[in-house]
């Protein structure tokens, strides 16, 4: 949506100097700012620990943020079409529990098991999508309810103790290095590229943006809004399931709590990444940056050796600061300043 040749309606209605903004799109500025912030934080963290500020810290951050990125992609698409997916945490647990129990410590049938899990998770999302579109349920309520139901099914199925282990091959994949870089980071790079392609440069992504901007107009224009929204919830759940598979492989087992740490961060990553929580605007690259920002922050705070209360306060504070920095007005002002100089 925010590609350089178009602007949102409110932007084109602005009266300030828009000639220069044609040259650098606001999206690019937003995304650059997030990555800039991440970079500044990483460099500044050298003051906290001499081991920080280097490539190994970047590696840890990329590795840990990959889980968040995978589930935030789906969350981002849902938010793009004016929804919200609160079932993410439970579906991650489903992905983890299923991979532990279906793979059961063996590599045999891995190529069938993974698609089966993703499909099972996608079905949960499709139910969410049907609830939201066909039955007109508010996304918040629909996904919360399905999340609770799905979590309870996991609880009943496992009796509280998820059995089994992920396939050794998956475990090896999480530990492996390709050209000296952990393989999940390569996966992150590929995923980020594909995600950006889908969200910003495919007709599917453009349709979603249209639906998010104005569902009625999109419908009138002949877009199958319902089917698109259902598909998006399906994708979100599949992404969450994928995260669950990787998390279980990373931890060599599943726990029922494993998704809890990803629900709010997945929403935060999307919003910090410059997407509008109201839908219709956002890029996946921004979300990736948002996820990295959150992970960098918690890595640094963890090294600070301060009390939990202060950590949480600082975490909230930095997220607020990032959001203020990302506000368009701040950018417009900055851009105008820079542009006038040349």
């Amino acid at each position, binding site marked *: 949506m925010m590609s350089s040749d178009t602007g949102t309606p409110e932007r084109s209605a602005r009266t300030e100097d828009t000639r220069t903004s044609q040259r650098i799109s606001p999206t690019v500025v937003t995304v650059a700012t997030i990555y800039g912030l991440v970079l500044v934080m990483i460099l500044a963290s050298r003051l906290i620990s001499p*081991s920080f500020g280097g490539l190994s810290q970047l590696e840890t951050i990329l590795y840990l943020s990959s889980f968040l990125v995978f589930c935030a992609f789906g969350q981002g698409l849902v938010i793009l079409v004016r929804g919200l997916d609160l079932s993410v945490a439970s579906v991650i647990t489903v992905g983890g529990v299923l991979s532990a129990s279906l793979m059961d410590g063996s590599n045999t049938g891995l190529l069938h098991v993974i698609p089966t899990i993703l499909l099972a998770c996608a079905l949960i999302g499709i139910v969410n999508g049907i609830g939201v579109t066909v039955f007109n349920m508010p996304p918040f309520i629909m996904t919360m309810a399905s999340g609770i139901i799905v979590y309870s099914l996991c609880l009943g199925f496992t009796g509280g103790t998820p059995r089994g282990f992920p396939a050794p091959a998956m475990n090896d994949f999480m530990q492996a290095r390709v050209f000296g870089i952990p393989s999940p980071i390569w996966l992150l790079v590929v995923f980020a590229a594909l995600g950006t392609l889908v969200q910003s440069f495919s007709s599917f992504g453009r349709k979603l943006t249209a639906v998010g901007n104005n569902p009625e107009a999109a419908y009138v224009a002949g877009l199958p809004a319902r089917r698109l929204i259902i598909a998006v919830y399906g994708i979100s759940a599949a992404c969450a399931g994928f995260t669950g598979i990787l998390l279980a492989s990373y931890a060599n087992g599943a726990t*029922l709590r494993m998704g809890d740490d990803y629900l709010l961060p997945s929403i935060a990553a999307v919003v910090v990444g410059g997407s509008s929580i109201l839908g219709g605007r956002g890029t996946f690259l921004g979300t990736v940056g948002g996820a990295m920002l959150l992970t960098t922050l918690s890595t640094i705070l963890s090294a600070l050796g301060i009390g939990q209360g202060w950590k949480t306060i600082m975490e909230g504070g930095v997220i607020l600061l990032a959001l203020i920095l990302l506000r368009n007005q701040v950018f417009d002002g900055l851009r105008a300043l820079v542009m006038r100089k040349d």
Partner: protein
Amino acid sequence: MKTTTKTLALAAMLAGTTILASGAAQAKTADGKWLIYLSLSYSGNAWQSEAANIVKALAATPPFNETVELVEVISGTDPQAQISDYESMIANGADGIVSFPISSNALNRVVRRGCNEDVLFFMYDGTVTESCAYNISFLSGGFGENTAQALVNELGGKGKIFLSRGVPGNSVDERHTDGAMHIFNQYPEIEIAAEYYSYWDDRTTQQETAKALAAHPDVDGVWAQAGEFGVIQALLQANPDRLVPVTGENSAGFRLALANPDMQAKGLRGVSSGSGPAQSGFAFKIMMEILNGQRDALPDGQRNIEYPLPWVPADAVKVCEGDTFEEGCNVFTEDKVPSSFVSEVFNPELLPELSLISALDGLPTPGATIQPLPAEAVKLAPDMPGINCRGCDAPANLYELTKIEATVQP
């Protein structure tokens, strides 16, 4: 009329089972069974579900299957929810409540109200400070100080360490950490490089440890509460060839790692100790013996009972061949249980009725019957202000080492 039916039913039961002595209180359900509630905080980690499964398995083991009606209630993590659940249980005529208490203070009033209506309260693992409740806990066993000393011994009294803690603000976490800090503070050359909350969860522990390792890759040791297997995973992730001494709780993954020669060669040493789900079964059995008149109720204010602290150093880890702890074994292999399985789920002396299907599925062991507790099973715990008593003083030797001696002097 109703009372008559109840008495008749009870009489029939008495005749049938002959385990009820004359002094027994009267059961409150219509069919003459004891109405027992199992009140949990949350279900969803291996520890909580094993503890609950043990009680369910015992309640289904003869003769309890004929005499006990067990109702499970899960309250979540909010004390307010557990308070209102307790209220409903009292109103429904509970004879006893076996519970994992969410808060050590918030439940006091409702517990007192229940005691006044002759409801027995048996708390396991966690404790309440209301004096009429029984607290069955390993907490007074000194997990924090003993494991801290074990770590200090391994490190020769100096080095950079991490503290992987539990849930912020939880009294169990605080007791553990206070005990540990009592030891660490005596050694000025022990530096606490990072301290983080891991919520007693393997995966959270792994991620939090990974973050701390990013800042301090040269860590010399880790003092961990439950979730300790995540520490080992994170260490291996950061450097597949280097492990450091780790002390932690009782997960199968951790115990197997401690005993694994490859891991030892990489530098892993340590001890497995801490909270065992078996406490719930012990609490339930004491309660049933009191209800059945086989055991005298303890006086109000002297109801803190210590569950013996498990203590398994690397050289004491022994793999179980069968489905329960026998011949001194204390861990199950990966083909039987997941790595997060909490090994201290059995106790050959106190809970001989249990086996793996009890812990994993809440089912009774085929052929088992409830055995009486040994006469000397109940050992009173010392006062721990704010944890198991109010307005009391801690004994001077609260943090005295009981499992290990200092091999390095401060």
